[in-house]
């Protein structure tokens, strides 16, 4: 028998308060406050003022397993996801070995199922070994138990135009999508940070915006030509927003994501030489930050995805030039979106549900179970958020194994109070329940 929960006075998508009853893995009832029929033994959660969202769906997560379990495991990463309000994550393919075969994607999928913190949907590599030379067995990954629909060489760009064309075409057979890491490799050899005023001063090799924009421009034209859908990972420049806006106006089937850090942080942080702020694509300028916010507000950018990229301390406690690219994000994403988009009036909570749950679930073709409406009869994949809370981020206290959060010491608004995966609480009172391990039949 699963526990029945009653969320008292929660506001679905930020709307009118209601009592929401979760039973047997689904939303059993949404009733006016005080009117829900509460079965005996139900756990009541005082949720007055809290916003109830569909469980968040991340289209871009690095779980590092197999290969770099010292930085993150499927279990630790998905626990961090649950703490951040996520009920599903897409695990990127740049593991060791690379997730370029049915065997590896099934391994990751199985680890996710065993951990039980969130649904894990492996992303398959586009090319064998991420080497950009020949297509991986995309069909085998699509047909595997992991049911892969998103393919990406993320971390590397599928820069060979004919290979990109073939990939875009090939995945149509199983309604897949290629998620492109847009980075022209020749324009970014040795690049360390955004190329501009700051890079000129601090003497770090520049990463021009055009290296991202040129690939996006090429890819939207390719997608148009072959009639495929394209997803653009972690778009970061004003020019990229313009290109995607233009492509959508032409009816090209393109979707785009922005990371939380590109919604708020700028390349001014490179002046500290603290490799915490070294990330791919690099932090850009305040003008770019405004452009991606505008793009997210007007729908040009479809979703927010974390690009959660955990790294060990030794990979960050070194010279900037020697440090790894990436920052964590699962546990701060919703707060950053609230601060930059909701508290500024540019998005409401229904929009947040769209950009962090409904649309990413649709792009990943998992919208049969995730990113569903908050309505009676729907799967109880939910995140309960207290938007009035504030917290100071403490990297050491996070659920992720790695400490490379760029928000250490920042006060951020909002707090995930509870997360439910098919009616089971993975997070209560803001902390992981521990019941996930039990539900999975043993700790890993």
């Amino acid at each position, binding site marked *: 028998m699963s526990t029945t929960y009653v969320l008292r006075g929660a506001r679905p998508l930020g709307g009118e308060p209601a009592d929401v009853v979760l039973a047997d893995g689904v939303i059993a009832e949404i009733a006016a406050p005080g009117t829900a029929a509460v079965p005996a033994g139900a756990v009541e959660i005082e949720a007055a003022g809290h916003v109830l969202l569909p469980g968040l769906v991340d289209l871009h997560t690095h779980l590092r397993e197999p290969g770099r379990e010292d930085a993150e495991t499927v279990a630790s990463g998905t626990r961090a996801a649950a703490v951040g309000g996520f009920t599903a994550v897409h695990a990127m393919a740049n593991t060791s070995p690379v997730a370029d075969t049915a065997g590896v994607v099934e391994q990751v999928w199985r680890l996710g199922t065993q951990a039980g913190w969130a649904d894990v949907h492996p992303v398959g590599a586009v090319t064998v070994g991420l080497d950009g030379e020949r297509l991986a067995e995309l069909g085998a990954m699509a047909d595997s138990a992991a049911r892969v629909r998103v393919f990406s060489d993320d971390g590397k760009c599928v820069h060979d135009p004919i290979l990109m064309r073939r990939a875009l075409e090939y995945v149509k057979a199983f309604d897949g999508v290629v998620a492109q890491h847009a980075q022209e490799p020749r324009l970014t*050899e*040795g690049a360390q940070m955004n*190329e*501009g*005023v*700051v*890079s*000129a*001063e*601090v*003497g*770090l*090799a*520049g990463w*021009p915006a055009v290296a991202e924009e040129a690939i996006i421009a090429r890819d939207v034209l390719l997608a148009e030509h072959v009639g495929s859908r394209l997803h653009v990972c972690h778009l970061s420049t004003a020019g990229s927003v313009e290109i995607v806006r233009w492509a959508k106006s032409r009816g090209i089937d393109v979707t785009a994501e922005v990371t939380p850090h590109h919604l*708020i*942080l*700028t*390349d*001014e*942080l490179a*002046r*500290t*030489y*603290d490799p915490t*702020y070294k990330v791919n694509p690099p*932090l850009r300028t*305040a003008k770019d*930050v*405004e452009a991606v*916010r505008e793009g997210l507000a007007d729908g040009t950018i479809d979703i927010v995805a974390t690009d959660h990229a955990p790294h060990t301390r*030794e*990979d960050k*406690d*070194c*010279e*900037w*030039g*020697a440090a790894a690219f990436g920052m964590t994000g699962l546990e701060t994403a919703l707060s950053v979106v609230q*601060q*930059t988009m909701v*508290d*500024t*009036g*540019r998005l409401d909570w229904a929009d947040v549900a769209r950009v962090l749950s409904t649309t990413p679930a649709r792009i990943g073709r998992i919208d049969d179970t995730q990113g569903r409406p908050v309505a009676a009869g729907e799967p109880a994949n939910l995140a309960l958020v207290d938007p009035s809370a504030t917290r100071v981020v403490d990297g050491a206290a996070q659920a992720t194994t790695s400490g490379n959060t760029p928000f250490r010491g*920042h006060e951020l608004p909002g707090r995930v109070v509870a997360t439910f995966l098919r009616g089971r609480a993975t997070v209560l009172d803001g902390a992981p329940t521990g019941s996930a391990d039990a539900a999975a039949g043993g700790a890993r």
Partner: protein
Amino acid sequence: MRHLLSTAELSRDESILLLDTAAQMAATQSRQIKKLPTLRGRTVVNLFFEDSTRTRISFETAAKRLSADVINFSAKGSSVSKGESLKDTALTLHAMGADAVVVRHWASGAPYQLAHAGWLDAAVLNAGDGTHMHPTQALLDAFTIRRHLGGPDGGLRGGGTDDGVGADLAGLKVAIVGDVLHSRVARANVRLLHTLGAEVTLVSPPTLLPVGVETWPCRTSYDLDATLADRQPDAVMMLRVQRERMSGGAGGFFPSPLEYTRYYGLDARRLALLPEHAIVMHPGPMNRGLEISAEAADSERAVIVEQVANGVAVRMAALYLLLSGEEQPPAAPPVTQPGTQPGTVEGTPR
């Protein structure tokens, strides 16, 4: 001053104090006994992650002339590939009780991390980091310019005898020529010479000027002949051109050494375009026949060998001021963007 990391952090008064102290040090170096007892019992570590015999022996000479104990620590290789990490090296030096660490590193910002990461409490002197900064080189260049051209009587070239002590470089025109993009010498000089009131023109092929240079406090030009003829600079500083910059791959910044020399090399013809009093500088080592011809390098206007000598005096001054001064609180954190969180963009309501 707690550390010497970047000329961008030096005020005009601090810069002049460094130059004046260097002048005092230089005066002692013409004596038969050159050694001063000033830093007896203090330990200076030369920590070199990148080969540079010239800079290392210059710092070593400076420290020894001040009676400091000098330890040379060659730590090649990166923290990721092989060997000890920057952090462990710093902790080791801290445990050994280094009073000052002179650091040369291939990574931009490494001296900055040594100074601010809390790994050691020694004074950090940046002896060149990546393509970022080389403050003692800029100081020795400014010292050399001032000695020849500065002060109310125009320095040595004006017949003066005071080495320009107490003066800044107001009104002097300096051209810096060559690979600005990869040059820590250029970055260090642009900031320091501007602080001291000089007018700097960077002359470079467009491929070797960084994107973003437009915010620097200087002029830029692609045309060396026009700069020499029209600006009539008081000093011309030629930058070393790395031969690997001209190959293919990530290089290819200019078509050939011959073409570079044709447009940006200092030769006898261009030397003749300069005003009579102008001096010719080069941080060394020179590529004779590439960025500077033998005629220019060996002309009586060239002060290149004197720059080397002045380097010792300037480094003595820097070590002296950092190690013998009163303990001061650490410098404020570097991030300057307004707002509650540095480097973040505040919410902008519609």
